[in-house]
């Protein structure tokens, strides 16, 4: 019997057996940025807090140190010090990034001074920068997660996830959501992850077993626990991996990848797939909207990897469970029903246009398709198409094919109204909206079932409409990567499946087995 068994919400399947590593609450805290006005207020508040702290410090120290503290206070009080940061915030940079950048420039300026007295002041500026950042709740340095450990933390940032080695390890979070960026990355990389564990009493170095699929964390497991939970050896799918997917009945199925970060593709052979069916762009916007050139470079990395295979890039799907600092609306009562996806992009054409321009420019380097998330009515598609045409005309390049995600029931039920180049069914959101069961509420998770006949009927109707009008229809939700659900999708008439890279082997096996017993032609 294990010392303790803690139940949470499954976020990424798999078993990890190892020892607990802990992350302090401060370093693991994720700062969710708000609108520019809130960010500006947050910065001013953090500066006042830092001034208060320094003033208290000045009273407690000797006159020499007091002189330095007095200087730091004077610098913090000077509107000229914060002005560049406030300008950046007005341009939708989050407060912590804006402050860090503004102070880094000051530090560099002092470091370049000829006079040693002035060069020495760089340290004061660095100190000021850190002090204010601490009050902003920003992590000042990224901690390290030991390889193979089961990380126990309040929450986890995508940047920390991406810089850590998770082979053999797992992620156990007190808070978090199965729909977060980190959960998506964990599923894509096959890292077991459980969220919503609440307060967990565990010490660093304690033995633990994490069952991502069951949402279970065992502390101090005995041998019986270990052998009970040890994952059965995965069947070898390497022979299938690089072959095209064909059902037993001879029907070809396109297997595509879902990716969030170009780094996910580094060790993968593009021959394993027929292209990239979904590039999520939210991570690229994680620190606020990037400029056009940065976006072009990022999109090119996916196209370069694909080597001519089609790459479908989704425009920013911010909002809902994926806030973007300085862009998405904070404090909506129900963000899943709020201003997310294309709704937000159309409300912020100055940000959307930059992304569309970058996509038009990147399209010169491969086969790029653009996909719009959360489309509800045809007018939204038309508005986006007009902005895309404008961007393309301005750049002097053709507009890439423009398709839509089908995830809102109003779109799925009236699919004939949408003159899109292609359709991609987002089953995660479609299931959530059709069954009225929020993705992030564990208590209703059993209701959010892609097998629900209402969901399968909608998928089949979109597939029929696509086949009749000559438009490709793909499925790019988690269902497409689940070997148990793949037969249902194939039966519904779907011939394009887009999934996390580590699901490809099992899905190809499920496709090859489909129809073997003559269940469907």
């Amino acid at each position, binding site marked *: 019997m294990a010392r303790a068994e803690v139940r949470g919400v499954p976020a990424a399947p798999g078993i990890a057996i190892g020892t607990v590593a802990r992350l302090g609450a401060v370093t693991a805290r994720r700062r969710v940025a708000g609108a520019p006005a809130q960010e500006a207020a947050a910065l001013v508040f953090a500066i006042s807090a830092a001034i208060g702290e320094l003033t208290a410090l000045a009273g407690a120290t000797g006159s020499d140190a007091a002189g330095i503290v007095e*200087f730091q206070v*004077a*610098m913090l009080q*000077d509107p000229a010090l914060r002005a560049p940061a406030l300008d950046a915030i007005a341009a939708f940079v989050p407060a912590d990034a804006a402050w860090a950048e503004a102070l880094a420039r*000051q530090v560099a300026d002092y470091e370049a001074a000829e006079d040693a007295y*002035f060069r020495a002041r760089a340290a004061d500026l660095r100190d000021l920068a850190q002090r204010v950042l601490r009050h902003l709740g920003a992590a000042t340095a990224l901690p390290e997660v030991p390889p193979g450990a089961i990380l126990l933390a309040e929450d986890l940032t995508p940047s920390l996830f991406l810089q850590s080695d998770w082979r053999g390890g797992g992620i156990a979070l007190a808070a978090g959501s199965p729909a977060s960026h980190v959960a998506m990355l964990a599923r894509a990389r096959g890292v077991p992850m459980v969220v919503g564990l609440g307060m967990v009493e565990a010490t660093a170095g304690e033995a633990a077993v994490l069952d991502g699929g069951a949402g279970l964390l065992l502390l101090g497991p005995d041998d019986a626990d270990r052998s009970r939970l040890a994952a059965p050896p995965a069947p070898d799918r390497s022979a299938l991996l690089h072959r095209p997917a064909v059902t037993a009945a001879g029907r070809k199925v396109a297997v595509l990848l879902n990716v969030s970060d170009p780094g996910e593709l580094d060790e993968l052979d593009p021959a394993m797939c027929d292209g990239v069916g979904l590039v999520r762009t939210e991570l690229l916007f994680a620190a606020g909207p990037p400029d056009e050139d940065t976006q072009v470079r990022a999109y090119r990395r996916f196209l370069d990897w694909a080597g001519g295979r089609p790459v479908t890039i989704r425009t920013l799907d911010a909002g809902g469970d994926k806030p973007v600092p300085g862009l998405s609306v904070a404090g909506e009562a129900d963000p899943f029903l709020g201003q997310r996806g294309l709704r937000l992009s159309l409300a912020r054409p100055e940000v959307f246009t930059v992304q569309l321009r970058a996509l038009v420019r990147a399209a010169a380097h491969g086969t790029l398709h653009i996909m719009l998330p959360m489309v509800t009515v045809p007018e939204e598609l038309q508005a986006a198409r007009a902005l895309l045409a404008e961007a393309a005309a301005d750049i002097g390049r053709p507009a890439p094919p423009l398709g839509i995600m089908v995830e809102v029931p109003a779109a799925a039920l009236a699919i004939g109204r949408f003159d899109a180049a292609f359709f991609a069914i987002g089953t995660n959101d479609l299931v959530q909206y059709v069954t009225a069961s929020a993705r992030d509420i564990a208590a209703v998770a059993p209701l959010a079932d892609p097998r629900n006949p209402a969901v399968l009927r909608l998928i089949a109707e979109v597939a029929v409409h696509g086949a009749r009008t000559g438009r490709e229809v793909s499925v790019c939700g988690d269902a497409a990567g689940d070997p148990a659900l793949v037969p249902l999708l194939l039966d519904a008439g779907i011939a394009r499946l887009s999934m996390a890279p580590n699901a490809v082997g099992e899905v190809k096996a499920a496709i090859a087995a489909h129809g073997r017993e003559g269940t469907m032609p």
Partner: protein
Amino acid sequence: MSEAVAITHPTGLHARPAVKLTMLAKTFPVPVELALAAEGPWIDAKSVVKVMGLKAPCGAVLHVRAADPAAVAALVDLVRRGFDDGAG
């Protein structure tokens, strides 16, 4: 009006001297400006960030200008007194 004064403080127009100078400048309601050359560029003498940005070392000639001659005189006097700061 403006006036020029050589900085004699050993560390130049540096942290503590800069704070003293800006605090004095702020006691005058008119704009007070500093430069390292008669033709400028002029910076706000009430901003410690800008004053530090001059990086004026010991021996540099500081130009002070303001519409109020009393402000100019007060700042020049502070520089001449070595910012009332014996050490550095």
